[in-house]
């Protein structure tokens, strides 16, 4: 599992820790008070991934913001409550420090289906300007250094297995 950034990006602080087991993400979800999922265009048309995300959201109560094309796929695959919202707008809301009440401030964001061209600066934006307690998990299958946790560069099959395992873990909790 390679952990070189799929494309070159620079950062000073520690790079994202590599997700080697589904347990890692499941533990983060268990601990999170207000998890959020941002799903980008990569989820559009990918029924398998959409169904897994629906399971994760269903089990954890995570709010799912999805770019409009991805929202349609998520809706069709078991997530009627998805909030259609372009990914940067979702990022801006999380980092904008303009929440109506402290209870609404997210403490965990899972990002998936976002092209690295946007995902890297988005994750750095969240890292720099998001709530201090925010943990950022990149769930795409290419390593993204600006997140707090990210998969290494892995194949599609392994990636699907890992995501399904995360869903299975959180479903076991019955949260």
């Amino acid at each position, binding site marked *: 599992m390679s952990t070189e950034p799929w494309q070159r*990006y620079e950062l000073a602080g520690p790079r994202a820790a590599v997700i080697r087991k589904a347990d890692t993400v499941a533990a983060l979800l268990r601990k999170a008070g207000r998890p959020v999922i941002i799903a980008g265009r990569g989820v559009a048309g990918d029924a398998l991934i959409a169904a897994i995300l629906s399971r994760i959201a269903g089990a954890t109560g995570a709010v799912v913001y999805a*770019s*409009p094309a991805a929202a349609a796929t998520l809706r069709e695959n078991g997530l009627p409550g998805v909030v259609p919202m*372009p990914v940067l707008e979702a990022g*801006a809301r999380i980092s904008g420090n303009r929440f109506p009440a402290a209870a609404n401030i997210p403490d965990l964001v899972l990002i998936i289906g976002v092209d690295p061209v946007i995902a890297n600066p988005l994750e*750095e934006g969240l890292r720099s*300007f998001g709530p*201090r307690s925010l943990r950022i998990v990149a769930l795409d299958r290419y390593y993204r250094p600006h997140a707090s946790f990210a998969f290494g560069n892995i194949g599609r099959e392994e990636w699907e297995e890992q995501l399904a395992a995360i869903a299975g873990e959180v479903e076991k909790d019955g949260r």
Partner: protein
Amino acid sequence: MKATVHIDELVSDSVRARGVTLRIGRVTEPWEEEPGPTRMPGIAALRSWDRALLSRYRPFYLPACDLCCLCTMGKCDLSRGKRGACGLDMASQQSRLVLLSAAIGAATHTGHTRELLEGLKERYGRDLRIDLGPSVTLEAPHIRLVTGIRPRALGDLEDAVDYCEREITQLLSCCHTGQEGEAIDFESKAFHAGMVDHVAMEAADIAQIAAYGFPKGDADAPLVELGTGCADITKPVILVIGHNVMPSVAIMDYLEEQGLSDQVELCGICCTALDASRYRDRARVIGPLSHQTRFIRSGIADVVVIDEQCIRTDVVDEAARVGAPVIATQAKALHGLPDMTDETVEAIADLLSEGRIQGAAVLDAGKAGEVAVRTAIALFPKRRKFRNLPGEAEVQAAAEQCLGCHACERVCPNGLPLSDAFARARDGDLSGLANLYESCIGCARCEGEDVCPKGLLPHSLLLGASARRMAGDRFRIRAGRGPVLDTEIRAVGGPIVMGDIPGVLGIVGCPNFHGPWSELPMIAEEFLWRRYIVTASGCAAMTLGMYRDAEGQGLYERYPGSFDAGGLVNVGSCVSNAHISGAAIKIASIFARRRLNSNYEEIADYVHNRVGAVGLAWGAMSQKAAAIAAGFWRLGIPVIVGPHGAKYRRALLGRKDIPEDWQIFDAKSGERVYGAPAPEHLFYVAETREEATVLIPKLCMRPSDTTKGRSIKLNHYIDLHSRFFGTMPDDLDLFVRTAADIPIAMKDDVLVVLREEGWEEDTKGIPDPTLVRRFVRERLHEH
């Protein structure tokens, strides 16, 4: 205008003189309109206006790097709330980089303008009239608005360019360590750079229109050849690259003088090509800047002439690979070539055509033109055409060596699936590689040292697989028409402000697309048939032409070039962008009769609240594009960029869910009222073509829309949202003010959505909107 006064004899109490000659360097003719409050505004003069905009559209910073490396106290890690050794935080550092980028862009256009203006004054004289034709009396909306100058002759542009140079110096100084320190103040200065940029661009374009006789707002400007396949390879071919048309004009003049126009091909890449085609319609436009490497490698060009901006910095090496010499013509881009300006034309042409030097700098446009022609004619018989790219058998053989390691994909800015394409090519199917042709931006990073462990050259292999496509790519583009006519503004000003014409879409910028280039014409066509006004410039204007329908017709052949509903208006090169923003200013001045002279804030307030215009820079890459966008922002015109635009380091996003952000003043009553998030964002990065397409009609909504206008705009927004995303928009309650706003054919469906959201009719009526309290008082007096 200059003046000379001769006095035979002068007698006064203190002086007695004979034969006195007075030379007055500049006489400024007064302009009948009273000046407003901001003549030649300094860097902080419009701060309050910028802050009004930036309090609605707050920056969301997207750092590309945690570090600041600009002074020797660093490197400083600014991540997670840390500050640098100078005290700067991450937000301020990102906004400093935004300013730096915009200032570089503005400096580049201003440097170009200075060069062009001096050259044109030398050739045509500073008294040459700026005549843009009988239908353009408002020849320079930006210059008049910002500097208070009404330019009548080339020499009158000097003060405007002086102003730009002064402001850019001040702006750059703000980037110094320990200077500006707060993010929003940096942002305001970036807006200032953008405003200055549009002044400089306008000066450049009206100067070259007046001097070179480019089309003057001609909707029927000629259709010219476009594409890699449009060069006649049976003739010597000269390729010009860049933005400053002076050397291209010199080449064409020399060819005409020598009777060689039909015997030598002049082709161009990037804006210099567009401007060359405005001078003579036989000039060929090869394509946008992404076509440089591929066209040079094709070997078609016998000589490469470069001027300035957006030239690949490895151009000399690339040209050397195919035995084509390079002639540098501007001091800004010498590329290590020896300065041979003082040598004779014959001597330089001999050295180049005999291959004794790879290239030469010839910093005299006339001489460079002559050298280029002579060299191309001498070299032509020695060079092979179109055989420098690998043949299909070579591509297949190379593909057999590919290890499938994905190294080439990882350095590709677009992450193109080259490994999969090579796997198919191994079996003799080259279509996988050929299909990547449009999505490849031609950077050749995949061929960098040590990228491919087998030493393969993926870009050349991709071109080899696409050779037939390259040879067959022939399209047509309407030559840049320059300004929008006053008569056109009078005809469409009302329908735009009322909303009957649902919007003006300005498609601008570079070809750094994240997907195939056909995405851009698809977006354009969506709005052309919906009867928006679509304007275009620069590389984006070329890309719009590189697309044909089933009947083989391109957009420029199918849509008229008039500034009217359903018109596709190519204004010209990068510097012609000023005509697009200038059209919005003209609406405020000509249609609404708002004072123009030195009155920026009022005009921008008008444009922001009433003119439903939006910019789209789908492949924006350069600092110039950043400056152009900043000029639109200061006028309150939203800009959408493609995915790579995230690397401009921030978005300016509105929060439609926070009603307080959308309070405006109603100048009729003086009350603060809710104006709706219209437009919702000021700078937006779209992930997909579909997202951008749906956003465009939404960003064309304005608080002043009439019910009919709002209904038309909502119709397009709902229709596109339903088509691309399969649902009704979830924010209609924010834009429907009364039931009359709802498109009739959609009324039942929309009312269902509105009831779910608890929508109530707004009974206050359509406001006379302004963001500036001062204008309430002034407008109340008028009422």
